[in-house]
């Protein structure tokens, strides 16, 4: 229902900017599902959303607001592409695994920085992760524009192509749908198991519920925050590496299209539940691939999607708003609580 509200508000914005909302949304729908190869494209876009949504959601469970998924995605892609083009003559399976692991490592390390700053100094992760996003963009821009990772044989600034052995296999010929989707689907039960069936998951949830209670119970809050941030970044990092290995096969200086920010909406929509990430990610995959077609077809900016997102989050985060508008008898599930008891801005 919040999604419907999102479209209504976005429709208003489109109408105000002087375009026809019905026509725009029809184009959006066409681009997401109907056109030839639309569905595979939607699934291609769904893949990073699953990884990133899982990562951001994991952070939420510990009370961490990881806005840095975008930067971690960049660094993951950077590590992945480096392994992808610098090693040769490896069997596909080994090469792909190495590159993906490098991506996880990159995202992990990049996210560990705000993790340490939070755990050690109480620096709020909202500021530090956003600042690190800008640092990541600048770093990637340097390495790929005028730094050591430029492909000298190309006129456009980009890294060399990755070794063919490092490419993720295509699932359906004639499309860009690649095996990364299967990995993302596999990641869902893994994250669920980690959160709901292991000690680490229990610690994460306890710290998210109440750091004071966790500390009283003998859980090291600092280590848990650090580990959660790292894992969250690792998931963002694998999303980046997966995108390089599966879709682009090289890395340009401006790489992501805001996947990391959309992922926050994905995680909120799914209420950080790993299973619910799947439909939420699919919805955003459809919005993403559909909006590209819409922009091409109707001159309405694909930015309209962020209006949909913002409205969706607003309605999810404010259950009272819902009650008020739809006169629900029973209040929906409680709002997401993120501001933990300590380290306020």
């Amino acid at each position: 229902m919040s999604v419907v509200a999102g479209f209504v508000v976005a429709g208003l914005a489109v109408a105000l900017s002087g375009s026809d909302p019905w026509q725009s949304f029809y184009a959006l729908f066409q681009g997401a599902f109907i056109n030839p190869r639309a569905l595979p494209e939607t699934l291609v876009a769904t893949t990073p959303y699953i990884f990133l949504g899982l990562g951001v959601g994991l952070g939420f469970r510990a009370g961490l607001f990881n806005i840095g998924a975008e930067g971690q995605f960049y660094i993951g892609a950077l590590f992945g592409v480096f392994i992808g083009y610098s090693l040769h003559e490896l069997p596909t399976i080994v090469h792909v695994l190495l590159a993906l692991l490098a991506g996880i490592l990159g995202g992990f390390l990049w996210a560990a920085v705000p993790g340490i700053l939070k755990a050690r100094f109480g620096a709020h992760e909202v500021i530090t992760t956003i600042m690190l996003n800008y640092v990541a963009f600048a770093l990637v821009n340097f390495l790929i524009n005028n730094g050591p990772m430029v492909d000298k044989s190309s006129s456009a600034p980009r890294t060399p192509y990755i070794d063919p052995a490092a490419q993720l296999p295509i699932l359906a010929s004639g499309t860009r749908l690649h095996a990364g989707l299967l990995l993302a689907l596999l990641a869902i039960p893994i994250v669920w198991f980690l959160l709901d069936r292991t000690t680490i998951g229990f610690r994460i949830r306890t710290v998210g519920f109440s750091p004071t209670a966790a500390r009283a119970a003998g859980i090291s809050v600092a280590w848990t925050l650090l580990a959660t941030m790292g894992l969250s970044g690792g998931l963002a990092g694998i999303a980046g590496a997966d995108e390089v290995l599966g879709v682009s096969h090289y890395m340009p200086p401006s790489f992501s299209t805001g996947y990391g920010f959309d992922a926050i909406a994905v995680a909120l929509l799914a209420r950080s539940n790993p299973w619910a990430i799947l439909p939420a990610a699919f919805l955003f995959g459809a919005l993403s691939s559909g909006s590209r077609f819409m922009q091409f077809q109707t001159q309405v900016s694909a930015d309209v999607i962020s209006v949909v997102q913002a409205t969706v989050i607003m309605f999810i985060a404010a259950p009272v708003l819902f009650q008020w508008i739809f006169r629900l008898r029973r209040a929906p599930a409680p709002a997401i609580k993120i501001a933990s008891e300590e380290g306020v801005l």
Partner: protein
Amino acid sequence: MNEATPLTLAALGGVVSERSGVVNIALEGMMLMSAFTGYVVAFQTHNLWLGVLAGVLTGVLIATLHAALSISLMVDQIVSGFVINILALGITGVFFKGFLQEASVAGPGVLPTWEIPLLSKIPVIGPILFIHQPITFAMLLAIVLIQFLLFYTVWGLRTRAVGEHPLAADTVGINVYLVRYVAVILSGGLAGLGGAYFSLQQIGQFLPNMTGGRGFIALAAMIFGKWKPLGAFYACLLFAGAEALSGRIQITGVHIPFQFLGMLPYLLTIIVVAGAMGRAVAPAADGKPYRKA
């Protein structure tokens, strides 16, 4: 001083809002929206002053949304701020493409530079304090004004009381909701003025995402300045100095890739936030919604 203008205005907004207990990470979105509406209005009416006014009003309007969400509807203040930030990115993106792209070639120009007679002739401090564009003057005025309002008036005392201990404030008859609304809305007006700086004083154009994270740098400056208007201003001067310095080094052609220089303000922000956190104490009820029993 120029670079410090929008930072300081936003940081002052942050100070006012957080002193009342409402975290405002929406400063970034407020500035961006205001930069946009300010530009559009100035463009349509050929009047820069109306543009500035529109910018301020936009800030006020968005701040009202933030206040409604986070104070009345009890939305997590950070989530609410985040929503406003992406909403601002989305709306400015849609409308920019909608009707500004062709128009942006011939902009409405920038605000004039004012020289205060006599005072500007004072050696050294004359040019620093008295030759500026209007929004910079407004910023200097705002520092003094907010400092006075917060610490020497009844309103300021109430605002700070609500930020420290809303229950106690409520008990002595202060309307917590009202005080918080006023603070957040004032904060939006300040951020709106800061936003107008970008499009109307600095370059006379609107560019997508032209605020580039300065709302967050302003928050860091606020923390570094220990939630005090003057302190925030000094911190903003420091950040602005880093930005200006990185620009200066670039021109002299020292062999450092420009991207590293671009990182400087952001890295500085991270260091400051980490370093200041232990010593600076936030208002006690900062970030906590208040539910009247």
